């Protein structure tokens, strides 16, 4: 994969990171070096194993459907920048653009 400044901008957008042009300029070669390193790791012989996943487990090993403890709502809401009446309050994120 070609690591260029366009890709850095796209990744930054997906990660909701605001980068200045200087930062993009600085990060692109760094990211390229990281990818070169990963490319070297990918050349390792690992046999048949799928390096991205673990060994499967049986259904029996899964959790039974029994209820455990829940968090205290007040302590959770306290961590939020804003809350009201038990709800987290966030900047409105649903924009309807009416066309046609």
């Amino acid at each position, binding site marked *: 994969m070609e690591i260029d400044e366009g890709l850095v901008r796209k990744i930054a957008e997906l990660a909701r990171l605001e980068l200045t042009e200087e930062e993009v300029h600085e990060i692109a070669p760094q990211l390229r070096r990281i990818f070169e390193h990963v490319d070297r790791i990918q050349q390792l012989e690992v046999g048949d194993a799928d390096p991205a996943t673990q060994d499967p487990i*049986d259904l029996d090993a899964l*959790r039974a459907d*029994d209820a455990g403890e829940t968090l205290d709502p007040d302590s959770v809401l306290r961590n939020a920048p804003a809350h009201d009446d038990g709800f987290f309050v966030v900047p409105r994120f649903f924009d309807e653009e009416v066309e046609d």
Partner: protein
Amino acid sequence: MSEHSAGRVLVGMEVHLQLKTNTKCFSPTPYRYGAEPNTLIDPVVMGLPGALPVLNREAVRLAIRTGLALGCEVAEVTKWDRKNYFYPDLPKGYQISQYDQPLCIDGAIEIDDDDGNPKRVRIRRAHLEEDTGKSTHDEGGAASRVDLNRAGAPLLEIVSEPDIASAGEAMRYLDALREIVAYLGTSDGNMQEGNLRCEPNINVLFDGGGKTPIVEVKNLNSVRNVGLAIEYETERQTRAYHERGQTMENTPRSTRGWDDDKGVTVHQRFKESEDDYRYFPEPDLPPVTITRDFVEAEREALPELPRARRARYREALGLSEYDAGVLTAEPALSAWYEQALAGPEGTRDAKAVANWIQGELLRYLNDQKIDLAAVALTPEGLGELVDLRAAGSINSRTAKDLFREVIESGASPAALVAERRLGQVSDRGAVEAAVRAAMEAQAKAVEAFRAGNEKARGRIFGEAMKQLSGRGDPQLVNEVLSELLG
């Protein structure tokens, strides 16, 4: 309809079905609809550092049970992946979903097409993932409110092929799916409470190969609205194609929301491409092996499904299409009917039992505004009543009176008949005595009848029945009356 040449609408349905577990998919927190906001949360749901998901076995089982009922193949090894995107109703910044190794693939739901012929809507995949939280948006305000109770609840996402060819087919597809999960008990399938949500993907094909861009419609909270949205989109897309030359080639896929008040769809956004979700295997969950023994045991445990049951009621029991539909609409009612049918000497008269249920029982439920579970009468009780009638032991009036009593008390009709000597009087001697007594008591009516007044006969008949405390075999009373009146 517009004046433009009509195309052929194609719909693929994405359904999110909330599975009926006690606890969430990846953490042991209970979920129930309607709880106070943010009271059903835990470190996994909140995405707190160090919290690890642990898969709920029952969620996997219910997903497999549902997949099997939809005729799917169940994967031998299945795994979970992270679907990455930022949204305030998803604190982790990713949803645990399944990408390339879904739990179930290649099924179908059989529905009727618009001409009433059977049609298979193919199911591409059904995978198990976690639900997101729920957000509400202040009208015209600058804020959104988030309740994370629902986040992490187990969802089966069922994706159909674009085999649905009309609004009617889409509605019947959803009805069929809701009915199947009700029979399976794997989900409440209630659209109002959001435990069944659906997003139709709609586009229109024209002669010559022209296609409109695919539109996914969200925010549909009833089957009826799904139908309306498909009709609306068919027209809107047809217009956009003819008037603005909008095609799949020149316009990206988009998401639109259904506006219930206006009855229209409203543009929300053009879709992110699949790449932008950056799926990768969930490192905190190992893949799961599903043994063939487990799959076969689950397959064995499937109940008869509603469509097959309706066919059996029509073909083997001789019920009408309508009766079969009423009796299978609710799994509890259908189970009740099945139990009432099973007599000590084999299957009872299916039509007779059906008539009692559809006439008296459903009317009673309706009048009292209660459901079947609250009724004292047992299916065995109704069965006895049907047997007593079939044997001629009680007449229809006694049967109806008894029904009204036992539906409240739950007592055995056979025991009541024995105890109160309610048995129908079919003894010829007793009937003759009663008719003679009636003719004496209604001497004037006898005279009138003999003088040619046909109506007077009814008064004598009524008197004879009264002499028999209403238990006379009406046919026999009539017969004797005719003889004695000459």
